[in-house]
């Protein structure tokens, strides 16, 4: 096996050399070949030494700065947590539809979404015995990246608008259907979904480029983390529907 791979390796290397030589066309003379090599060798050594020295200095400075910042952050952590809890209590959870599209109210809207998701999760935790206890932990784990982005106000604007619309319809009485429709727009939107036969021949087709284009992907197709929290939002919608019906029946 090694001999076969070695012979194949040598053959492919020589083949690639020929291809590169043919692509260049006219080959330069031998004297011109030697001169750039010598200059490159002379120039490379001091640059490497300089790079190593600068890298070492930067590493030491960065390490000390990182250590100091982490120490200060750890010391101030309880105070910052208390401040965050106090701020969370002052913010109301009700989402104003006029704030959904505005850029000025984006941080407040982000925090409202965060707190409302926490509220739904607390309700689910309270009624854990009656409604799908096996899904609760997975849902919390999947929602953690979303809650972190909402708290830091780092979620993309289009995702925040769609998410706020879903949560707004959840807050209104008897608008579960609108919430589900908003969820469909959040997850899939108007993008063509890649279904059906996708590997017919080797030629590119116009419809295929629409489906497989990188910038035309639906939100649920962005990456694994986003897909997980979007499906967890659907779980929250379903729980809210169950909770509302049970709450009305009990009342």
């Amino acid at each position, binding site marked *: 096996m090694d001999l076969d791979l070695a012979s194949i390796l040598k053959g492919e290397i020589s083949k690639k050399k020929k291809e590169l030589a043919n692509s260049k066309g006219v080959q330069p003379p031998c004297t011109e070949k030697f001169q750039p090599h010598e200059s490159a060798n002379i120039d490379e050594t001091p640059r490497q030494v300089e790079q190593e020295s600068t890298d070492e200095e930067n590493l030491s400075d960065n390490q000390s700065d990182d250590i100091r910042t982490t120490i200060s952050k750890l010391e101030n952590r309880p105070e910052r947590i208390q401040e965050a809890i106090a701020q969370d209590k002052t913010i109301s959870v009700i989402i104003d539809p006029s704030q959904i599209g505005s850029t000025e109210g984006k941080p407040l809207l982000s925090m409202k979404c965060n707190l409302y998701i926490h509220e739904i999760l607390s309700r689910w935790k309270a009624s854990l015995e009656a409604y799908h206890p096996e899904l609760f932990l997975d849902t919390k784990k999947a929602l953690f990246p979303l809650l972190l982005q909402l708290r830091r106000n780092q979620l993309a604007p289009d995702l925040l608008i769609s998410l706020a619309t879903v949560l707004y319809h959840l807050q209104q009485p008897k608008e579960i259907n609108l919430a589900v429709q908003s969820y469909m727009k959040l997850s899939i939107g108007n993008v063509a979904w890649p279904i059906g036969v996708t590997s017919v021949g080797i030629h590119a087709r116009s419809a295929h480029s629409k489906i497989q284009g990188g910038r035309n992907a639906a939100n649920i197709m962005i990456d*694994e983390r986003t897909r997980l929290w979007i499906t967890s939002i659907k779980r929250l919608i379903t729980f809210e529907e169950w909770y509302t019906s049970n709450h009305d029946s009990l009342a």
Partner: protein
Amino acid sequence: MAVNEFQVESNISPKQLNNQSVSLVIPRLTRDKIHNSMYYKVNLSNESLRGNTMVELLKVMIGAFGTIKGQNGHLHMMVLGGIEFKCILMKLIEIRPNFQQLNFLLNVKNENGFDSKYIIALLLVYARLQYYYLNGNNKNDDDENDLIKLFKVQLYKYSQHYFKLKSFPLQVDCFAHSYNEELCIIHIDELVDWLATQDHIWGIPLGKCQWNKIYNSDEESSSSESESNGDSEDDNDTSSES
């Protein structure tokens, strides 16, 4: 997942490792995107390769990632973390080379101006992805111990090297929606450090690993000892070839 829900995946590799298909180490969405990309269909499907073994894939790897000193060509392919890189990585996972093939490719000699640095980077990422579950507890499994020794030697070896590689930033996923096309130059030790410490690379999650701990003092001494063993193995290979 619902009880009555089922799905058929025609792209799962038939080879198994650790009692599951080898292609399942990459998440579903990433796997679909790789399989649906044009480069994979044209160059890496079984019909295009005219086979499904390492012999056919080696030709594609050398054509895409092998470099010849003094001659520059196919520059758009020699990028770590791009679509071509991920496609070849996916095909490597599906084919699952054995120990002899891995040992040969990781110890390729750079003769006649040939440089295999991109292939080595590809194989290091492959080893970290595919064999994350290995541990040295099972003393009876010699194959597993050989793999651990090989991977540790290579990781420690290339953590001391400084050659440059063109790459996407290691935290960037080239399939992501908000992805901006920017390239950077990284050194091989930065890649090794990332593989040893982080839990994802170019949008692909990395499993929890026990054999990539190369920064402890005990591990360094054992790695250096195994490195000497690796050198002796190389000498044996040369003698067998001659």
